[in-house]
């Protein structure tokens, strides 16, 4: 790549227009809005107003751009992965490398914006929810950087499968609160964070981790994440002289997907493909494929698709990926789905782990298991579209946090009779020779018992 590495702010095209949605009250068609207790409306109004003023303030724009460049390491590169692509019907595959950001995922893009907003409204404490721990780590990082105190809510179940990130957050000075209510995963962490916020709203800002939640979060988080697609669109045009045929991303709450989709929404010829966590398979009921397997309703402050039963109770989701293990989805995705601009497909745990292993061994890149869902969708779409296709994939994060889950899935490491339990695997390296250097993917030997 050329000058963009030297003068990223200059090389970046003028910010493309914001989509015409949401409306002034946060509605994406019938989706979005604010379904929260009245007590939170004042804080949401304050955030909306402060954000609208901040986002056009030249001082903010300059400070945000400098942080992205000097702290996050933006722009992130685009990497072509030909050995991986051999398994994708010969289509050409480009990865947008959000895994190379400081803290290891796209989550930092959003958090730096919201941390600057927190400072602007004069609050000294931030709270956050986290599933995989990536948003929690990013928030703890920004809090350390800006001198804010930080509390992160994390489902107890997730503190176990993402023990590395719990340790990272604590090292960064954040308090991590394991949540023991409900399904003990991301959805319950969000409930607890809202309860904290309504109680301590005077001095506390809620740094929300994805494009879900009440207005203004879906629009604001999108604006902070769209840098992914703005950069990638220019990078692909520069190196290929054409747009990709499809842009693919995994969808939990949907922030990395919206981040890479937004710049391409006006490009009618570009397919936008979201990959949802299919868990054991949508037909088994044990999944987190919200748009594929859910129905419109209200959860966590917005109307959107969600997994729910006949009583309107949220159904617990299941995925090997903590970051995708969420029964809701951001309202803009529901909207893009209903107007037919984006398509959403499920990827099972097994398919994701196969793609995970393939990228490790063909390209030397260990992806986050979340991102591996997008890679699995890429293998499928490449085989469908064939060798002329150009596919752009958001590699939303790196897989360091997932080595324990992956080792267990593939049956690597010591096979103790006794489950070593959380955090006990750090000295257990994968057995030498257990993984060949070829492209063969080991079979699924031991599934996650989540």
């Amino acid at each position, binding site marked *: 790549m050329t000058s963009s590495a030297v003068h990223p702010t200059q090389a970046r095209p003028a910010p493309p227009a914001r989509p015409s949605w949401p409306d002034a009250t946060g509605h994406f068609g019938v989706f979005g809005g604010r379904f929260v*207790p009245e007590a939170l409306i004042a804080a949401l109004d304050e955030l909306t107003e402060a954000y609208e003023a901040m986002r056009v303030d030249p001082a903010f724009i300059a400070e945000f751009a400098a942080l992205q460049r000097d702290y996050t390491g933006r722009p992130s590169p685009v990497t072509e992965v030909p050995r991986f692509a051999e398994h994708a019907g010969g289509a050409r595959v480009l990865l947008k490398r959000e895994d190379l950001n400081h803290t290891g995922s796209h989550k930092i893009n959003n958090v730096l914006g919201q941390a600057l907003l927190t400072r602007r409204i004069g609050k000294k404490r931030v709270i956050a929810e986290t599933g995989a721990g990536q948003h929690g780590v990013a928030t703890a990082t920004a809090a350390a950087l800006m001198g804010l105190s930080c509390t992160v809510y994390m489902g107890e179940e997730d503190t176990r499968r993402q023990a590395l990130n719990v340790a990272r957050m604590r090292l960064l000075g954040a308090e991590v609160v394991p949540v023991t209510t409900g399904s003990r995963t991301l959805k319950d962490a969000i409930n607890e964070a809202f309860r904290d916020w309504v109680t301590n709203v005077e001095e506390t800002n809620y740094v929300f981790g994805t494009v879900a939640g009440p207005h203004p979060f879906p629009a604001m988080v999108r604006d902070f994440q769209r840098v992914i697609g703005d950069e990638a669109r220019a990078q692909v045009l520069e190196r290929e002289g054409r747009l990709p045929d499809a842009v693919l991303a995994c969808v939990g709450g949907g922030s990395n997907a919206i981040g890479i989709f937004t710049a391409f929404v006006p490009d009618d010829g570009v397919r936008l493909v979201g990959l949802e966590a299919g868990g054991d398979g949508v037909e088994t009921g044990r999944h987190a494929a919200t748009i594929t397997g859910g129905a419109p309703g209200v959860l966590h402050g917005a109307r959107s698709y969600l997994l729910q039963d006949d009583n*309107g109770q949220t159904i617990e989701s299941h995925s090997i990926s903590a970051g995708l293990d969420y029964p809701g989805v951001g309202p803009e995705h529901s909207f893009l789905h209903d107007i037919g601009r984006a398509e959403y497909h499920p990827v099972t745990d097994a398919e994701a782990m196969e793609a995970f292993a393939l990228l490790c061994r063909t390209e030397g890149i260990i992806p986050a298991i979340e991102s591996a869902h997008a890679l699995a969708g890429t293998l499928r779409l490449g085989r469908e579209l064939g060798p002329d296709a150009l596919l752009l994939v958001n590699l939303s994060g790196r897989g360091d946090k997932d080595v324990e889950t992956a080792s267990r899935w593939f049956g690597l490491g010591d096979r103790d009779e006794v489950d070593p339990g959380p955090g006990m695997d750090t000295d257990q390296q994968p057995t030498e020779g257990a993984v060949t250097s070829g492209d063969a993917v080991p079979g699924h030997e031991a599934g996650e018992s989540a």
Partner: protein
Amino acid sequence: MSLLAERIAAARAEGRAALIAYLPVGYPDVDTSIEAMVAAIEGGADALEVGVPYSDPGMEGPVIQEAMDVAVRAGVGLRHVLPAVRAVAAAGGVPVVMSYWNPIERYGVDRFADDLAAAGGAGAITPDLIPDEAGAWIAASDRTGLDRVFLVAPSSTDARLAATVAASRGFVYAASTMGVTGTRTTVSTAAGELVARTRTVAGDLPICVGLGVSNGDQAAEVAGFADGVIVGSAYVREMLDGRGAEGVRALSAELADGVRRAGVRA
């Protein structure tokens, strides 16, 4: 006139505030919860908020969460609320449904309104539905004559107080503190201020205060400035601790005594 406003006016005519109890249907099971609701009315409550169990009750503290969790896991939902509504009405209380929005939306807003009106329910309190998002519910409650109770909070601006009061019927629910449900040892000073601010725009609409009231003395204090006193977690605590319908009945008696001690607001 609305069933709730009528009952609150009747209490005022007796020189006291109304007592409104909350219990979720389905804890520890549907039948026992309905017995407890009837006992709350027999013990002296004027109205009963029939709580709909919900998987993600963002406004509830640990006590109500614990009871709801049991009910949700047992598959209790909005349809189990209708027998509770009938039983409360038969016991002489005014039943009002307290529900997060998604169970109602899933049931169908119009179907909910029709079924609730037919069962003798007064209306519904919707803690996570603000008037701005309530178009379908406002239309359905107008059509069926049901009350709709929205919430105001210490953080509400004057403009929002006015809009929320204008959209409410039956009473307006003043959430006395910034926080979630639960028993508290003192009544927050914010409660009196919020009621006073709401009073300037409320006209004839009664103002009832909830969040944190748990005993007769606190009920008496709140009854000194509000038209109704709402008690939730303290009732649920009786159930969680296994005192059941008799504990609920005794709590109602204590609270009913409290709302009478204060004397009617000038």
